[in-house]
Structure formats: structure tokens, C-alpha cells
């Protein structure tokens, strides 16, 4: 759909705002609605939008397969890592109170990293599933 001028311009206008909105939802989840899951989906949707307009190879150049697969595992590891950090610092698994001298600040820090882990995994998985399906579609067309 690269040849449609209107679609291309609208996509170029919208995609940066979608990515910024994803970051906003991610890091503002403490104060407003949102959190890691929603942010991850919105970020993945921005890249999928890009892939729909400019083609799958362009999207794969921008967000390569290796990075997406790494994100899938990295988010879970980050989440579990926060839990292990709680044990190492003398608390229970996923105990955020010990992450900082001030318990409330510790909660903030724990929730921040946990949400980051959720967002990374969710956007990675959504993108990976889309890449897989879209890759098959292109292969079917070649036959």
C-alpha cells in the first residue's frame, strides 16, 4: 500500500504519536489508566501499522526478528529478576519494600520495572505473532 499518498502521509503523521502514547501509557500507568500490557500492545500496533503501509520487509528492517525474539524472553526475565532482587536484598520473592531504603519508593521502583517487563514481553509476542502470520502470507503469494 506504499503507493497510496494519503495512507502514507497519515501513517507518517500517526506512528510517532502512537509510539509516544505507548511510552506515556507505560510510564504514566501509576497515575492514570494503563500499564505495561496496554503499552506493549499499542507499541506493537504502531509497528504493525507501519508494516501494513510500508510492507513487511521495511518493518523487519526497523524492528529486526532477533530483537523481537529477544524481547519476548527479556520481559519475563526482567519481571522474575525483580522478584529475585527482592530475595537477594533480604525480602520475599516479588517483595518490593526492600528495593529501596524508603518502602514506598521501593514499591515505586518495583512496580516500574515489573511493568517494563510486562510491556517488553507483550509487545514482543504481539509483533512476533504478526511477523509469523504475515511471513506465511507472503510465502503463499509466491506460490
Amino acid at each position, binding site marked *: 500500500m506504499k503507493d497510496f499518498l494519503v495512507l502514507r502521509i497519515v501513517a507518517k503523521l500517526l506512528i510517532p504519536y502512537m509510539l509516544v502514547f505507548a511510552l506515556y501509557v507505560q510510564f504514566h500507568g*501509576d497515575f492514570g489508566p494503563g*500499564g505495561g*500490557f496496554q503499552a506493549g500492545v499499542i507499541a506493537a500496533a504502531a509497528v504493525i501499522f507501519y508494516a501494513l503501509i510500508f510492507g513487511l520487509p521495511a518493518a523487519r528492517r526497523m524492528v529486526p526478528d532477533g530483537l523481537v525474539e529477544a524481547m519476548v524472553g527479556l520481559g519475563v526475565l526482567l*519481571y522474575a529478576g525483580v522478584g529475585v532482587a527482592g530475595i537477594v536484598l533480604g525480602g520475599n520473592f516479588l517483595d518490593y519494600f526492600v528495593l529501596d531504603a524508603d518502602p514506598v519508593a521501593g*514499591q515505586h521502583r518495583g*512496580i516500574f520495572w515489573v511493568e517494563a517487563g510486562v510491556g517488553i514481553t*507483550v509487545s514482543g509476542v504481539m509483533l512476533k505473532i504478526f511477523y509469523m502470520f504475515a511471513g506465511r502470507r507472503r510465502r503463499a503469494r509466491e506460490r
Partner: protein
Amino acid sequence: MAVATVAIALQRNLFSVVILGGVYSFLMATVLVALDAVDVAMTEASVGAGISTVLLLGALYLCGGEEAKPLHRPWLPLAVSLIIVGALVYGTLGLPAFSDALAPIHVHVAPRYLLQGPIETGIPNVVTAVLASYRGFDTLGEVTVVFTAGAGVIALLRRARRRKDWESEK
């Protein structure tokens, strides 16, 4: 929403079924906003109407856009679903009335979360506090489920592709 549902059931063209599914998701999201569940509404709009519509369209491209004619009469499935609907409606009669302040769910841990949550975690959005802190272990499980889904898709689709390459080389 009822119109969208009936249209989905009657429609033979799968493309319009997918689009109507997206419409249904957006209507559901507005209902959730009206119920003050903005977090869930956001998820419904982005996942239900956005990404799953795109994925279903991708699936449609692979397997064609017309539903096959049913092989037999739908009376037995219809009877089963009517019985289930009756059982579910009967079950809702036993639930406490909508927005009943004394319902069990409102007197168990919810007041503690609402009163202590902002003090203990310093986070104004109670949904985030409950999800990430009080129920942190559950959320870890959910993330693992998402991870497993991704790993499953990778395992299934990539293996199919490799076998195809292998066959074409042979």
C-alpha cells in the same frame, strides 16, 4: 452490540464478520468506559479491535473469505446453546444486585486495597497497585502465559516453514 452479534451469526462473508467483530469490540470498550473500567477498555480496544482484527485478516488471506455451507441442520447446537443460556441467566439471578455495596466482593479485600493501597505503595492508580504489587505473583503468571503463547506460535509456524524448505531442496 446485539445487532452486531446477530449480523456476525447470519453473515456468510468472513471479511464482514471480522470487521463486525472489530465493531463489537469497540462497542464493548465504550461499555467498559461507562463502567469506569478504563484500563480494561483500553485493552479491549487495542487487542480486540486492533491487533486481533489484523491477525484475523491475515488468517483470511491464507484460507479464503467465504464460509462453507453448513453440512447439517443447526437444531441440536441451537438447543444446547439455549439450555446453556438458560442456566447462565438462572445463575445471574443468585448474584447480588448491581452496585450493591454489601456484596461479598466489596467487603472482603477491596476496602483494604482502596484505603491502604495509596498509602503503602504511593501509587494513585489502584488498578496498577493491585496488579503489580498485591497480585504481583498472578501478573508474573500472566506474563509467562503470554510468553508461552509467543513461544508456541514460534515453535509451530517456524517448524512448518523449515520442513517446506527441506522438501523443496529434496
